[in-house]
């Protein structure tokens, strides 16, 4: 959206407000006058979320527009936005609010069953009964009922070299967006290295620590959980892979190896998958993970 379009939107909004206000006053003070009908035009206000703001420099007369735009267009950070006094311009602020709305809305959705079926994953749930419980009781998001543990032992290959788990975490969108690229890429990398891989499955309402209960239950050497990260404004699709060697309940966070920012705008999921497979092999070789695995 350019400046004149924006100005047009603002002027229109103001004029509608003014008209509505006049209408109220008219009816209040003078019974002989009929209120003026507000004039509603056809058409709609342009979609602010459709603007690729990476291609926009709102700074008037920048010292070096070409280079500014080149560098700005390469990053998802909100740059080149200019200001109203020291504050945001109106379109900048409203776009920020629109993106925040997307992120908030994304937290409370579930991964569609179809996505899990296509990825060949069966599903289990942690001890969290719903999203609010998931958000406020992280302890329950790391634990499973005895029945669930028994089911996992029944359905999964025991004592594999590498166990892969997928979980919604704080972004179902991230699972939906990345799973079809990242999972095959990891599996392919591991199979070409001749590593034995356990039965992958999905954990609903999972926290990172859920992987430790699974490491104990299934006896995996390396455990990998692919987990939806809390959404940012630039994307709700970010996924992280947390990896442990010899995981157990209570393992220090420093012993987890992490690959974060996996999404189309960050580390590409297919590439991340290959890297994760490589890390798994290194962990198996060095029998270590996290800070103990100095690379």
């Amino acid at each position, binding site marked *: 959206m350019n400046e004149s379009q924006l100005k047009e939107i603002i002027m229109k909004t103001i004029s509608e407000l003014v008209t509505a206000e006049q209408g109220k006053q008219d009816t209040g003070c003078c019974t002989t006058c009929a209120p003026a009908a507000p004039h509603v035009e056809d058409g709609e206000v342009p979609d602010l979320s459709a603007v690729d703001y990476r291609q926009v420099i709102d700074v008037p007369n920048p010292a070096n527009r070409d*280079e500014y735009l080149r560098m700005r267009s390469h990053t998802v950070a909100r740059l080149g936005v200019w200001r109203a006094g020291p504050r945001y311009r109106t379109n900048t602020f409203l776009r920020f609010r629109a993106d925040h709305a997307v992120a908030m809305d994304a937290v409370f959705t579930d991964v569609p069953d179809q996505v899990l079926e296509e990825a060949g994953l069966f599903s289990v749930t942690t001890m969290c009964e719903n999203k609010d419980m998931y958000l406020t009781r992280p302890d329950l998001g790391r634990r499973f009922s005895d029945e669930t543990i028994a089911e996992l032992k029944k359905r999964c290959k025991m004592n594999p070299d590498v166990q892969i788990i997928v979980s919604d975490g704080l972004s179902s969108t991230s699972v939906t967006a990345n799973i079809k690229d990242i999972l095959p890429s990891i599996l392919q990398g591991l199979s070409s290295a001749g590593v034995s891989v356990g039965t992958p499955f999905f954990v609903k309402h999972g926290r990172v620590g859920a992987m430790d209960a699974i490491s104990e239950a299934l006896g995996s050497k390396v455990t990998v959980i692919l987990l939806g990260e809390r959404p940012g*404004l630039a994307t709700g699709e*970010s996924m992280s892979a947390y990896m442990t060697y010899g995981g157990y309940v209570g393992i220090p966070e420093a012993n987890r190896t992490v690959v974060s920012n996996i999404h189309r705008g960050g580390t590409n999921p297919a590439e991340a998958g290959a890297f994760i497979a490589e890390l798994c092999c290194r962990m198996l070789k060095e029998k270590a993970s996290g800070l103990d695995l100095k690379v």
Partner: protein
Amino acid sequence: MKLKTTLNGSSFAFRDIKDVLAKANEPKSADRFQGIAAETATERVAAKIVLSELTVGDLTENPTIPYEKDEVTRVNIDGLNRPMYERFKNMTIGGLREWILDHKTTTEELCRASRAFTGEVAAAVAKLMSAMDLVYGASKIVRPTKCITEIGLPGTLSYRCQANSPTDDLSDILIGVMEGLSYGCGDACLGINPVTDDAETTKRIADGLWDLVKKNGVPTQITVLSHITTQMQAVRNGAPLSMFFQSIAGTQAANDNFGVSRALLEEAYDLARQSCTGLGPNLLYFETGQGSEVSIGADNGVDEMTLEARTYGFGRFFLPFMVNNVSGFIGPETLYDGKEMIRANLEDHFMGKLMGLPMGMAPCYTNHTSITQDDQEMATALLAMAGANYYMGVPLGDDVMLSYQDTSFHDDATLRELSHRLPAPEFHKWMMKMELMDENGRLTPKAGDASIFLK
């Protein structure tokens, strides 16, 4: 030491000091999650009343985690100035609150008293304070520090320029830093959180920032916020870091989890003196925030606010250049909504300042809570009245690497105008030389254009 009282027709008996401290808290989701919160409004006030009659000595000699069992407790207590402690030992917490707020108590006296108090004492007095008490009490305390430049001087307000990249791309980081500088953000430091925690990435980012700073003569500090052992390796490999950064917490178990200890920080401080670009004496940068211990199950049943104050007692031992509080970063299991986040920020800023720390604040929110942009801005405005040393500056407040919202370059410029405060002196001179800011700290028409650094 009395742990019982009767209030509003009910009697209350608290188990121990840990119990009194927890129940005296304003509502927090972490306390509810731990099962240690007051169950009724009257019980909460009863705990505050019992707490008000305990003495500084009671809380110091009965730490929430025993001295023999926890390094954070040991550093809190070993870090006390004994003669100063003796002066306050018999004062009640209620009396301490009034002493802090008293017009007769000067800034100098407050600053000198800081090493009389452990985390438990600072937390206790803050639990007896309302929001405006916390703002007023903190506003009386100043804590300047020096690394390469000096920040936290009266009348100044500084910022860390935090232009992170989700791919550690140096060009993305630099254009963000350039834009931040053009808004006057970056006098506390240029501080980048890398995605990849290795010495090579840390050095590559530090080198890039150093080139920018050298080329343009920017008077500031450079930090890359990988794990402290990674930064130490990077500096041994020649990375031009001004100081070392590390997240710290309020229990030994949580610090173990973060891979940090007293011995490691002492080693880091020694290395910084020999090999960092900052001359000090303040050469460390700590990050803290309510709820980190609870979120990793390393809280020992102590409430998150008391643990936060214990963290300050740990950090203070190492003379940090800046302490950066990020209460709000974790999520709704520790601070449920805007009201809890705002309160936590005011508590943390006050407790840190009382204990003699150079507190910078990052009132922030994630996208899985009900906290809104307005809540965050209200916290920021109140903290500016309270006199926080510095804030973050993130492009539009949207951290595209850490996925949360913090203060923005625009907020930084706005706060300076609103609070009539200037950047750190050398940085202000530099801003005026660059024609980005006038002598009163207001942006010029050139400010906001990153490309002045691309000419």
